[in-house]
């Protein structure tokens, strides 16, 4: 009854092509944005912002990146962690060379370096498909991990071998480094994620997205109708890596504050892949839902078990539960949370009079 688009007529093309063609969706998204921007920073405490909100948003962005590649363009990748690392290390080098440059610009620029690396490692996708490609992306993952650990120039010759985030200010407000408050960092992360998500939603609706989906559904058929496989696959790899790179840079600069090679290892790639699959392949909303679920599940479990058993056991149990839940969700709904939301919307449309 509340969610029904009856009577909302579209009288021009721009209304027909709106991101949210249904008025309830539009109102809903503005309400959520208002809540995230105006209510969350002032009511949630540091724990909530630091260990739940910020990481969820950052992982959601990484999941959008992987979703562009795997969900929209159909190229399975296990190298997300490496691409995120590229962004983080590029960000460190850029801000070392240009200390006065606005840090938000630096973070957004560092994505381009990740994109360049993604472009190079995307080249094999022209000949290799499916699981073979997944294994090929592991080459990038392990090579990048090795490079991050071995090339001291990348981490500014720090003794610890880790990225140490310097303090950068905009208008005298510390954005990164130890002096930045969690509220500022949260707001910066949120703004970047919202803008990039908006860009992504337009990309996947447009020419890029449609050619990606054509390649995903069947690349030979796509080639026959005049889509260039070369440019389509490589743009998918580059744009996806751009998103992952920005997410990686934000992860280190706006969340962790310091990072070693281990922050970008293969488990990280799997974590993001889980988010994409559980959330729903080929859905931006799914990336957010998946990230929220996978990231917060262990925190919830820890909260549920409390102090009654030791930390190691909780970790083992949370591994078991995450593994079990992934299988459970795949059995119940292989298309993820995004499809569940779709079904719920269909039901809501008719509710409470289904006939």
């Amino acid at each position, binding site marked *: 009854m509340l969610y029904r688009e009856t009577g909302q007529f579209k009288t021009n093309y721009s209304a027909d092509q709106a991101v949210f063609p249904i008025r309830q969706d539009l109102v809903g998204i503005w309400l959520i944005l208002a809540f995230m921007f105006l209510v969350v920073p002032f009511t949630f405490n540091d724990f909530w912002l630091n260990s739940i909100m910020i990481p969820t948003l950052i992982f959601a962005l990484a999941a959008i990146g992987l979703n562009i590649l795997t969900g929209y363009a159909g190229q399975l990748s296990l190298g997300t962690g490496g691409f995120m690392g590229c962004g983080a290390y590029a960000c460190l080098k850029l801000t070392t060379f240009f200390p006065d440059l606005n840090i938000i610009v630096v973070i957004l620029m560092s994505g381009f370096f990740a994109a360049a690396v993604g472009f190079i490692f995307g080249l094999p996708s022209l000949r290799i498909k499916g699981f073979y490609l997944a294994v090929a992306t592991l080459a990038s993952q392990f090579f990048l991990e090795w490079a991050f650990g*071995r090339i001291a120039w990348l981490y500014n010759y720090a003794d610890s071998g880790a990225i140490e985030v310097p303090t950068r200010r905009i208008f005298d407000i510390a954005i990164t480094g130890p002096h930045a408050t969690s509220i500022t960092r949260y707001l910066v992360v949120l703004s970047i994620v919202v803008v990039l998500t908006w860009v992504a939603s337009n990309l996947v609706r447009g020419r890029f997205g449609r050619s990606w989906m054509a390649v995903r559904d069947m690349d*030979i058929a796509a080639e026959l109708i005049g889509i260039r496989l070369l440019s389509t696959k490589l743009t998918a790899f580059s744009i996806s890596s751009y998103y992952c790179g920005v997410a990686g840079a934000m992860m280190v600069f706006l969340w962790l504050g310091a990072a070693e090679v281990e922050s970008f290892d293969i488990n990280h790639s799997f974590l993001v892949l889980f988010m994409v699959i559980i959330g729903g392949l080929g859905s931006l909303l799914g990336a957010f839902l998946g990230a929220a679920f996978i990231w917060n599940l262990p925190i919830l479990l820890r909260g549920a078990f409390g102090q009654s058993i030791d930390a190691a056991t909780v970790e083992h149990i*949370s591994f078991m539960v995450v593994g079990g839940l992934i299988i459970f969700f795949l059995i119940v709904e292989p298309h993820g949370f995004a499809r569940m939301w779709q079904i719920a919307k269909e039901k809501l449309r008719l509710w409470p009079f289904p006939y």
Partner: protein
Amino acid sequence: MGEILHGLFVNPFIEIAGAPDLFVQVLWEGFVSGTLYALIALGFVLIFKASGVFNFAQGIMVVFGALSLVGLFAAGVPAWLALILCIGIMFGLAWGVERVVLRNLVNQEPIILFMATIGLNYFLIGFGEFIFGGEPKTMITSEIGLPTGSFDFEVLGGLVSLQQIDVSAAVIAGLLVAGLAIFFNKTRIGRALRAVADDHQAAMSVGITLQQIWVIVWFAAGIVALTTGIMWGARSDVSFALSIVALKALPVLILGGFTSVPGAIVGGLIIGISEKLAEFYWGPLVGGSIESWFPYFLALIFLWFRPQGLFGEKIIERV
């Protein structure tokens, strides 16, 4: 520039020619790790052939098998009984996977099944650590009758030392492959397995039960995993760190093709030997530990020329 080329193309060969005994030793090391990669890849191939599932959890099954053996022994079960119980556990695992996972995911896309095995992977890590604890353990090598110690040979004017456990690993791997070949070619169940691998629907139409075949094939992969786990555990500790090393079986699969048993063996040996040679002779040029990514690059270069792998069938695509 000349120095780099010299380092790449001249120096390693001078080193090889200068110390042939060392070269033989490195080759042997590569051969042994290649055997283990080949065994893991064999588990992958068995499952992929019969059910089309890209079983990511094979590496964990290796660790899980070894861990339950050590864990049972530590709990006071005699070694021979522990071994039998472990085979039972592997069967239970195969049955459980078929019952809980595969049966419910019939006809899903390959990526969904792949994800399910990653879920299984995580579940087994948590389960294994929960029951047996997370710390590394020592394999009960001598208790289950495997030799320890080493043979020393005079080769090409130097001394080459072969660990007896490695020799027995190679022998057991050979026996296992031979046994599987006989099982596949000579028995009734083996024929059914090959039929399923060829075409699911045709196999079902002549009265082969898919579910039963899946259990058998996962059980066979489990036995292969248990053997690998014992061999590998005898070389180093039994711990979940093994599962990352087990990922090396993936470039082996690429090289050999996902569906070919001989491919898995040959691919394993190529990867094992080339990675050890590269690490030993070319690694120092770029600061070492290139072992971690070299196999993947080798496989990648290889794929560029032969996308279907060494023994894979030619991919024919139709619209």
